[in-house]
């Protein structure tokens, strides 16, 4: 199978600055135009039956891309399995709901506060638990996700199981109103947030934190021996991921104008994790693609409404078996010089030749 990831990277690296800027601008413009794609005969196959296409683009598609990018920092970049990511989403959403209904702060002012609370939760959860490894961390984060949800259900002052209604919507920006009749404006907002996160992740991953995460992901013990302050970088990864989830939560609450505990169950965490792994862990574009497909597909196939989750599960199994590394896996080798690449090529062809020869010999021997 062709490696789309490497092909794309090759083209990108071969392009000059102007070409890159042009491509990025076209891609961003295309993304911003997506809400109108449902109106043209050429692209109206994108329309979702039953639910409104523009609204679907905001939630689940945009939100899931945002959250998947946040979780990718934790799972893909630093290799920490987090099964309770929805908790940070919930914290962001509840912060927006509580502050929005009880104070005069508007959504833009609440956004950093929600991110801050989510980060704080990330640090508080991370400090004791990030010393644990692998699947212990998975189960503890899973528990944390459930704890946040059950706390929300069992606290009458924040609405208990009924949640909070009447969350204010964001105030108008540059003449663009944010209300229920303008899902496209919400979508643009989410796209801008997604771009900001992508920019941040790309910056971080080539700097010290990114290299530290990569080291931790590949081998924690070795990273420790090389002097990487493991716990500190793990907590950074955790809390940055949490902040992205919190930001998604704030926007989610003010877009839906309503939060309730059942929006934050364990299935959401699993779905976001699926987006990350399905698309290709650690690779931003893979994650974006995976999240787009997994969030959009169930809405698109609503006509088989009863069986759509079933098909979704089946699709996960089949896809993982065909492409275990995800749709667009992370790039394997980086920073190879031309000579190294040539050397690699000759070694590989020699290896293949010897493999073929040994197979032939085996066949003859069996005859």
């Amino acid at each position, binding site marked *: 199978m062709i490696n789309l990831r490497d092909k794309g990277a090759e083209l990108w690296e071969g392009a000059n600055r102007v070409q890159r800027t042009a491509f990025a601008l076209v891609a961003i413009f295309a993304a911003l135009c997506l809400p109108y794609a449902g109106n043209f005969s050429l692209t109206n196959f994108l329309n979702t039956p039953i639910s409104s296409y523009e609204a679907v683009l905001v939630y689940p598609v945009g939100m899931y891309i945002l959250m998947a990018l946040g979780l990718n920092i934790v799972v893909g970049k630093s290799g920490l399995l987090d099964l309770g990511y929805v908790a940070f989403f919930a914290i962001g959403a509840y912060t927006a709901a509580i502050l929005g209904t009880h104070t005069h702060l508007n959504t833009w002012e609440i956004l950093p506060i929600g991110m801050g609370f989510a980060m704080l939760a990330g640090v508080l959860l991370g400090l004791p638990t990030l010393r644990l490894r692998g699947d212990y961390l998975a189960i503890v984060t899973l528990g944390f996700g459930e704890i946040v949800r059950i706390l929300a259900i069992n606290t009458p002052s924040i609405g208990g199981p009924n949640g909070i209604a009447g969350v204010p919507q964001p105030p108008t920006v540059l003449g663009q109103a944010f209300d229920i009749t303008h899902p496209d404006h919400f979508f643009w907002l989410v796209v801008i947030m997604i771009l900001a996160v992508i920019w941040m992740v790309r910056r971080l991953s080539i700097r010290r934190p990114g290299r530290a995460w990569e080291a931790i992901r590949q081998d924690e013990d070795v990273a420790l021996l090389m002097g990487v302050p493991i716990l500190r970088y793990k907590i950074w990864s955790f809390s940055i991921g949490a902040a992205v989830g919190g930001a998604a939560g704030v926007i989610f609450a003010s877009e839906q104008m309503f939060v309730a505990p059942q929006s934050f169950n364990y299935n959401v965490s699993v779905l976001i994790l699926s987006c990350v*792994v399905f698309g290709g862990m650690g690779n931003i574009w893979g994650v974006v693609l995976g999240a787009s497909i997994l969030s959009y597909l169930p809405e698109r196939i609503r006509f088989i409404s009863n069986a759509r989750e079933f098909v979704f599960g089946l699709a996960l199994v089949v896809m993982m078996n065909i492409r275990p590394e995800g749709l667009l896996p992370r790039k394997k080798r980086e920073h190879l010089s031309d000579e190294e690449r040539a050397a690699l090529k000759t070694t590989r062809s020699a290896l293949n030749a010897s493999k073929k020869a040994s197979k032939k010999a085996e066949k003859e021997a069996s005859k």
Partner: protein
Amino acid sequence: MNFSVVGSQFFPLLINGLALGFIYVLVSVGYTMVYGVLRLINFANSEIFMLGTFATAIVSTSVFKFNQNSQPSHGMKLFIVLLCCLLASMATSGVVAVFVELIAYRRLRTKGANRLGSLISAIGTSITLSEGVRILTHSIPVASPRVLSKFYVFKIHGVGLRIDQLLTIASGLLLFIAVDRFVTKTRMGKAIRAVSMSEENSKLMGINLNRVISLTFLIGGLVTGAAAFMYMTVYEQTVFNVGFNIGLAAFTAAVLGGIGNLRGAFYGGLALGLAEEYFSALLGSQWKEITVFVVLVLVLLVKPNGLFGEAVQQTRV
């Protein structure tokens, strides 16, 4: 906080907790054995459990024609009915477990994919199975008719042990001992332990890896199926997502005891069953899950490898 409840209800809670605990023990054996061998959280185990409960319900209603109005049976017939239900449940779960491994995990494993790939495949399998059953049953809970009349075996000062609880505790204990014996004493058990220590080396020693892994899934499935049968005799109702909470609790139990460690699953399951009963009496049942996870976090803080340590002390990447 209501401590007096715990004082006055100490023994009934103990018995309920033990019965629940043994169900957890058996389900977490399914998790811990697969984890020990493959380092994989078998998310589909909760659905394997769920299918077992449905097998029990179907056998008692379709084969033995029990319905909601029929009288509980006794004597030889009771024994035969229970045995058939148990066998059907175990067989269903065992077979499904083996097939799940064949279809969803084997290809990924032979390809040498990363562990999260298998995890997502496991999650996909779990969604597929539970959604399949949801569609077939139209999300309606299926009640199992009462086969075993729930009399008290003995009663002292109002504290009694019901027959279904006794059955659960006794057969849970027996089954666990059987699995433990199998893994520690027999040749195949030795192979399982070898694979869980090192896949590569056991391959070099001539162990048929695929067979051992299938066997592990089979044993895990059989034991989970037995747990499903016990769950049905005690709670008498099942629904397509019944496995979710049980599976979560059982996996927590396995981690509590030290995942990959069979005896750890035993103590972890019992501890969790008892903790759930006492905490829900103390704080109200809505806080049950939270206290369980808090206990888990506290235990892991003091003993990062679980109460009894992992079977293999190795870094999990």
